[in-house]
């Protein structure tokens, strides 16, 4: 069963993401900040990490680097309300595997996760 680590400090987005993905049959673990996310990633295996960027304490950028340091193969997707031109490119350069801006279409999120999770 595909498991997704959903990292977001906004409880509404945690609920929305969990519902969107669980209805699709994914297992969803939620982390409220970067530190929790890194700890969770070390505790159990995940197929995809959906990472908000702006979070208190450890932000998404640091968390992505922490996770990539110990799990280089684990895909990390930036999910952010920063949707200015070039944000997408910057994230990819930084090391994120993909980028999706908020608000997203729920179908869009599901197909992205499906694509990354089945990646060999």
């Amino acid at each position, binding site marked *: 069963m595909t498991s997704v680590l959903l990292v977001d400090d906004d409880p509404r987005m945690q609920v929305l993401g969990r519902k969107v993905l669980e*209805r699709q049959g994914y297992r969803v673990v939620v982390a409220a900040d970067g530190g929790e996310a890194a700890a969770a990633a070390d505790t159990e295996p995940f197929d995809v990490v959906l990472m908000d960027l702006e979070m208190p304490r450890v932000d998404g950028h640091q968390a992505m680097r922490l996770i990539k340091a110990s799990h280089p193969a684990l895909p990390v997707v930036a999910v952010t309300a*920063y949707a200015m031109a070039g944000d997408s490119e910057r994230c990819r350069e930084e090391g994120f595997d993909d980028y999706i801006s908020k*608000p997203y279409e729920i179908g869009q999120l599901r197909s992205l996760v499906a694509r990354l999770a089945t990646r060999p």
Partner: protein
Amino acid sequence: MRLLSRRSAVVFFFVITGVPIALLIYSAIAISTSSAVAQAENGAAGSAQTSAVFIHQRFEAVAVQVDTFAKQTMAPAMQGGPNHYDMAGIGAGLSDFIRVQGDVDTAFVTDPQGQLVSIAPQRNDLVGKYLTGDDWYRGVRAQNSPFVSGLSSTAARQSLDSVAIATPVTSRPGAAPVLYGYVVALFGLQQIQEFVDEFQASNGTGVCLVDSAGFVLAEPGLEPGSVTSWPAGDAMMRGALLGHPGQAPMTHDGVQELAAYAPVPGFGWVVVADVPRSVALGAAERLRMTMLTIAGILAVMLFVGLVVGWSLVHRAQQSASYRSRMESLTRLNEAARAVHAERGLRALQIIASRARELVVADFSALGVWDPETRRMDLVAHDASADLSDPALQHLAARLIEPRKPALAASRGMLVELIGDGHDVDRRGLGPSLLVPVTAGDRVLGCLAVCRLEGSPDFHSLNESQLLQMSQHATSVLEKARHDTEREAFMDRLSDTNAELERANQLKSQFLARMSHELRTPLSAIIGFSELLLEGGSGRLNQDQRGDVNEIASAGRLLLDVINDILDLSRIEAGRMRLDREPIRLGSLLTDVASALRPLAHEKALELRVAIVGGDPPVLADPLRFRQIVTNLVSNALKFTREGGVTIRLLALPKEVEVSVLDTGIGIPPPALEYVFDEFSQVESGGGLEGTGLGLSIAQRLVQLHGGSIGVDSEVGVGSRFWFRLPVAAGAAASLALAAPPAEEAAP
């Protein structure tokens, strides 16, 4: 080198050459004229003398003959007195006498009482007449010896054309001579007149014989028998009658003459010889003419010399003035170079030095007016080598510092200005000159020069030279002021720029922040709406679905507004970057039409694409081109209730025109010009959705592409929004071969 002034040079030349020559000519003429006059006078005197002697001798001879006749012939006939006269002898004697003496035409004998006894030629009517009233009778009785009368009138002869020569007839000389009577001969003046005429004919000298009574006996051209008197007022004549010879100029018949007076001894007559001045002075006149000719030639030579000398002096002066002008130009040039090469005080110092040299002053001072301290500050001064007294600086400061702008502006002699109650020590200072340093109406300072006491005054040329120098000082001062102002301005500008940069950054951060903060709740709104519509948490009835759809579409509209605002602000901040490439627009238009067709179908509208006259490539950013067309088409669909919308691509010679034509409500003319302004939707009466930013963004993006955009509209008929993009010149050929343009893409 200082040259004589032109006038003094001419005067000098004239004096050293003209005066000696004029003196020489004058004295030569004077000497020659006086010698000729003397010669002429001598000649006249000689003529008079000769004539006098001749006349004297002539009459003396006649007198002697008369006397001899009286003694030898008449005495015997008259011996014994009147009662014993031998009348026949007397008559025969007289007849013989006039026959022998051709000059004597009449001779007669009287008794001692003057009674005529006998006369030849014989005149019986006169015999016995007493002739005691005659001149000769009074004369001979008075001197009792032969007597020659003047022009004589006698009862024995009516005409006045003779001179009587009378002699007493006495007994033989003894103890007491007895007077027997008188013998008188009348001598015709004809003889004398002939002599005078001959004399004048031979040497041009007129001789005039005047008797003691002032009657003219003979003169050239005198008619015998006419009586002419010598002018009574002639003093020279009175002197000559008293026996003194003399000479005098006189005018005779309007001719200038020289006259010589010579007394005839014994007769009381005077001979006057007169020579016309032209004759007497002929030689002197010729000499004078010669001298005058020489003088004329010399004068011409003198004049030529003067002209040549003048032109030489003039040329020398010109070259001197040229040199001095060159020197002054050199100084002005140096000052001008200093203005360009040097700055500030160094340049002002050079100007002060050059100004002093330019007007040949002993020292110069340059003051700058400080409007804050209200003082004229001495900034530069310069003194000649023999004036290197350090006290000069104080002197210069004293000259400069009391100047106020108004006073400095009234340029002129410094000494006059010093009189205005300023405490300036003028010891040792001579002529001075002050000019203001001005820029327009503002007085920036003053430039003063001064010569030492006893030096020549400055002239007006110096003032204009100094003014030129002061203009250089103006340049320096103005440049310095501009530099300062420019630096201050640049500082302010860079401060402003930094502030603007900060403000811009803050704005960008704010926009990014706002976008982020709006998007997060929108994510929840749109996301949960979609979840509800998905029906995973229970199916919604029709009414509920409708409501949730409204929530979702309102959320998406808000998202569009946010995106449009971000785009606009990016364009306005100049941060919109275009990724331009040569593209054909046909397929892009078809894509946009496909994406928007569902929206059109919702309103039962047709959406068509028409490509007319080819599809040449243009240089454009595909993403932004799509955005432009999407905005225009969305706008058209929004304002169209029935009919349809057509997207038309038209290839023009150098441009590609995209038109979006609708059959909508149209735009009233007054609104047309605001149609591209932000948030300017036309009052439509219906609840039309939209950000109100789409047309603005489209316009700006077209402009970023170097294209043009516009709209034609008719209310109730429809609108045509169009934009044109330039054809990509370089890329045209390659793309034209690669992909043949589609003629029309059906909806």
